[in-house]
């Protein structure tokens, strides 16, 4: 029950939710082109970079569940070049959605009792705290993505 709720909260922020913010990552970025995704307003992180930053953690936690090893590092979490084509941007998005759903399914399949177990190593805290943190971190940057998208649209005279 708790595992299913946690998995659904992850799906909500990335794939399909509207309850918290009336939007989610997929809703925000799926209709953008790669030039818009690369666009940096006054030196701020681009929407493409923020999206890759969030995916980095989701893919890293997914891999940790699959292999038992946590290899992601904060210092590398913004190390991504701009997208070079629409296809590259679309391919990234597909990985983002696929990895999110794969992680949600792993979380959903966990017995509730396991949520209190150590995440990979006791030094990282337990499962639920880490997954909660992943979701909250995603909401933090989703707020920024939504704001940046509106700013870009207004600069383009679209909205």
């Amino acid at each position: 029950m708790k595992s299913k709720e946690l998995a659904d909260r992850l799906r909500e922020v990335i794939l399909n939710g509207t309850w918290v913010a009336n939007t989610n990552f997929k809703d925000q970025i799926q209709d953008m082109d790669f030039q818009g995704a690369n666009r940096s307003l006054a030196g701020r992180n681009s929407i493409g970079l923020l999206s890759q930053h969030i995916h980095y953690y989701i893919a890293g936690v997914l891999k940790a569940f699959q292999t038992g090893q946590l290899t992601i590092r904060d210092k590398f979490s913004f190390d991504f070049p701009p997208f070079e084509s629409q296809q590259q941007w679309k391919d990234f998005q597909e990985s983002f959605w696929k990895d999110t759903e794969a992680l949600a399914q792993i979380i959903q399949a966990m017995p509730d009792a396991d949520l209190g177990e150590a995440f990979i190593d006791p030094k990282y805290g337990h499962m639920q705290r880490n997954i909660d943190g992943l979701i909250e971190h995603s909401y933090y940057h989703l707020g920024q993505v939504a704001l940046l998208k509106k700013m870009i649209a207004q600069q383009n005279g679209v909205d």
Partner: protein
Amino acid sequence: MATIAHFISQMQEIQAGKPWIGSSYERKLAEVDPSLVYVRPTPKLKSIAALISHLTLWREEAVLKIKTGQGSKTDACIENWLPDKELQAQGWNSIWAAYQQSFTDLISSLKGKEDSFLQQTYYDTDFKGEYTYQWLLDGILQHDVYHLGQLGLIIKHLKE
């Protein structure tokens, strides 16, 4: 596990502590000249005052739901995003005081409750159905974090 104590701790960090995600609301707002709080970053974006007032509304609603089992507002209500004139009439000190009071009231409404309370349900006026308090509190925390991410960008934009 997801406990009331953990929720309170997370909310306190976001409000005035040192959240792992960055700066708290109080720290970010301490950087802001009060003359900027009503300025919209762009014509169609919300001001800091509007954002803080918006957060206050949903915290007050959460307290109402915790106390009575039912809310009173929907996303479409006028208080969700008050017009600029109304916000200016209230004054920043009043908006900020209401925000801080809503935080105090939310924490007070939860203190002394057992974690089993999180599995009890309330009627959500906006979503027209029964939901658990766990769902409500997760949503409030995530909502605060969502707008905290925006606040930093708005402040940077206004300072330029």
